[in-house]
């Protein structure tokens, strides 16, 4: 009786310390959803679905940003790469028709994303210029490329691909009511990101990305190839950005050459998600929860009919407050 809590305490403390930030974000998200339900009692399955569908491009952009930030870099070209991927997808899907050709189009878009990301990475490693300088330049390059591919919004998205992220999850054999609250889009997001992130974290490359971001010299001395790891991280970010661009095209049904507001939003979610901007620390779940938190905040502010010019101030204030609170908590932990 007396021994048990003593034995249990350290493990709880370890879990809390390691995942405290993520847990806190999950609680915050749950509270915000509860608040939404209070503000708008009719909020339910369709509201959740709209929320997840709106979050998709932000989630992929944030995942892309997370990988490079953990590797000690930053990718300012993420929204522009999304635009290139989005218009490429729209043009290819328009020509691919309804059948399996659309899958080829998706594959091609992912390759284009990988190529863009690899270009970013190779330039950074090759020129030895700071990541922020190279990717700032590439922001404009990819923006121009997107406009070369499509001068004005156009192209099309394959209907059956668009349907993938519409409606609630249906599991054969289960009554629809059991999964009515789980949007299909959430499943798509979770499956894709898990398929990329989980194997990566356990792989040599994943360890290398954390090691390079944490301390380049130490990583080099332990035999990690710095250049190759960085290029791989940026390539992966390119693929994730391409998925983000595709999700924009699937949401709207056309390709848009002008980049959307995904750059700053993804940096914000990464910071809010507990990833150190210096690199080497953090995971993917925190930033993803942050993406959803930021979307719910936007939804609540709309539901409350808050003055739109005040809305952005509130969004920014919440972000600054949360990150500052996190900094204070971290300082207190270090002291004790």
């Amino acid at each position: 009786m007396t021994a048990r809590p003593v034995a249990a305490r350290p493990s709880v403390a370890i879990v809390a310390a390691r995942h405290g930030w993520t847990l806190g974000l999950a609680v915050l998200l749950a509270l915000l959803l509860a608040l939404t339900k209070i503000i708008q009692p009719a909020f339910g399955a369709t509201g959740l679905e709209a929320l997840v569908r709106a979050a998709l491009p932000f989630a992929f952009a944030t995942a892309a940003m997370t990988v490079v930030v953990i590797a000690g870099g930053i990718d300012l070209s993420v929204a522009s790469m999304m635009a290139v991927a989005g218009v490429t997808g729209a043009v290819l899907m328009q020509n691919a028709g309804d059948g399996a050709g659309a899958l080829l189009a998706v594959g091609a878009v992912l390759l284009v994303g990988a190529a863009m990301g690899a270009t970013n990475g190779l330039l950074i490693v090759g020129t030895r210029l700071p990541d922020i300088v190279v990717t700032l330049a590439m922001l404009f390059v990819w923006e121009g490329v997107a406009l070369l591919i499509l001068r004005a919004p156009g192209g099309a998205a394959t209907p059956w691909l668009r349907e993938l992220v519409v409606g609630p999850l249906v599991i054969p054999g289960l009554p629809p009511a059991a999964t009515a609250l789980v949007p299909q889009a959430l499943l798509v997001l979770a499956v894709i990101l898990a398929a990329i992130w989980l194997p990566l974290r356990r792989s040599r490359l994943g360890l290398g990305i954390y090691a390079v971001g944490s301390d380049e010299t130490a990583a080099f001395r332990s035999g990690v190839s710095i250049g190759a790891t960085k290029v791989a991280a940026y390539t992966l970010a390119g693929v994730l950005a391409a998925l983000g661009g595709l999700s924009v095209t699937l949401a709207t049904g056309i390709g848009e050459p002008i980049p959307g507001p995904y750059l700053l939003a993804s940096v914000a979610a990464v910071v809010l998600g507990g990833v150190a901007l210096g690199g080497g620390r953090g995971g993917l779940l925190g930033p993803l929860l942050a993406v959803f938190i930021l979307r719910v905040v936007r939804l609540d502010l709309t539901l409350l009919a808050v003055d739109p010019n005040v809305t952005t101030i509130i969004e920014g204030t919440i972000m600054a407050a949360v990150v500052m609170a996190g900094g204070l908590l971290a300082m207190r932990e270090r002291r004790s």
Partner: protein
Amino acid sequence: MTRRISAAAALALAAALGAPAAAQDMFTIGVSNTVQGNGWREQMICAIRAQALDSGQVASLNVAHRNTDAAGQLEDIRNLIQAGVDAIVVNPASPDALNDAIREATAAGIVVVAVDQAVSEESAFVISNDQEQYAYLGARWLFEQLGGEGDVVYMRGAAGASADEDRDRGFRRALEEFPNIRIAQEVFTGWQQDQGKQQMLDYLASGLPVDGVWTSGIDNVIVDAFLESGEPLVPIVGADNAGFVEQLLTVDGLVGAAVTNPGSIGGAGVTLALQILNGESPEERVVTVTPELWTNATEEGRARIEEARNPDLDPEWPVSVSIPGWTTYSMEEIIACRGPGE
């Protein structure tokens, strides 16, 4: 951690208490706009607020007004559906990209009115300025003014924007009628004042031959660029923005034309939405407001400009602050920019 959660909750609760309670048999109108901080769009929002207040039929406005893309506008429209509004007035970022969310809204019994630019979704109504005609009128006037011959700088809006594409069609239609007009430079101002001015200063400094300038509404700063660089003025086409209209009357040697493009179309959208909510749908799904051209080169045009000038307005605001038959607010009301419950 608890502290930051309670802080967020307190913030939201404070906002909730501030929100007006919806009165019965009054309507709630949602607004979605994706360009913030542009004079024209700000006038549109103020026209929506003023008309909603003046109509006496709007309990509250729910305005989603921020800089975002079509995907962000899908989110805003869906959030407005969640908010349970009766009608949505939207300035669409794209004619086709919003159709899914618009269909969801109309399926939920919400009246959707697109203003300024059209949407292709059949269940939505559209009230818009005719952008192709806007460009055609101004371009034709400019080419005639030049005697059908010369080098023209073509200063467009934002690359990839649908209004810009529509205007481009109108401009090129006029260009086809004048084979001896050459485009000396074609450039996107992004509808940004500073950018357009710098582009013009660069052209003038480079010695580019310029016989006339067509602008997509970034106009008064182009006149400034000529004046500051000391180059002789050439005919300039702009919109009916207050600053440019003032220049047409006061700048010596400036010959120009202003084409109307009222931001007050937002107020007209509110009127149309209320008509439909009250059971009076228009016969046509698309209602267009035809632009007018005012030039200071003729007595008649000068008189029209004199009548429209308004030094009280922000230089970026169009002087056509109201649309007869569609808006009922006064000049003071739109400048005050107050909506119901504010």
